């Protein structure tokens, strides 16, 4: 399969865990939509790919991370996880470094994603 199945909502995640609240906010938006029966795809761009790294922990002050939420996505039937291939390369990551199965997207494939979804939210 080369083309992702179109879904109702594309949530673009561009921030890593812990530094800001953007990642959590984006995941929350995705979960709300999924809880209401929408089909949701996530696209991890730029620094957002680091949200998928294995081995994340709580912050130094005990702040909860987001990796438990990422593992929960499957329970909300959010299974289309797209990642920007160039961003993986920029961070020196391979799929083996990631905690969940993903689909790597070329620059050209990414440029088709927003048009293929009924709603796009960027976080």
């Amino acid at each position, binding site marked *: 399969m080369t083309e992702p199945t179109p879904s109702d909502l594309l949530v673009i995640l561009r921030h890593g865990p812990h530094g800001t609240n953007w990642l959590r906010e984006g995941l929350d938006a995705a979960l709300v939509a999924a809880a209401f029966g929408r089909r949701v795809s996530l696209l991890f761009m*730029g620094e957002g790919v680091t949200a998928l790294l294995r081995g994340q922990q709580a912050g130094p002050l005990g702040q909860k991370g987001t990796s438990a939420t990422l593992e929960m996505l499957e329970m909300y039937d959010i299974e289309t996880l797209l990642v920007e291939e160039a961003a993986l390369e920029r961070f020196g990551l391979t799929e083996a470094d990631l905690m969940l199965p993903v689909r790597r997207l070329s620059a050209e494939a990414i440029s088709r994603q927003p048009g293929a979804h009924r709603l*796009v939210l960027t976080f």
Partner: protein
Amino acid sequence: MLLHILNRSPAASRVYQQALAAMGPEDRLLLIEDGVQGALPQLVRYFDGLQGRLFALREDLAARGLEGRCEASVQVVDVDGFVDLTEEAERTVSWY
């Protein structure tokens, strides 16, 4: 055709790269707030390839003293023009 809206300056932020990466071949880009700096002749090169599809918001240019300093290929629109662009697009995507 989607309308992408960018509010960060290409001189200060890499967000513009994400906007460009996500744009389809017909999509338009509107520069607002600090994004309007990208309409300057010295900075517009970041948006090569968008000729005819690059817009900047007049009110934000004027507020920054940049109205009249734009590269001629950038189409300057006022708030009503912003609304028109929104209506012409299937939907909008914000980059911030």
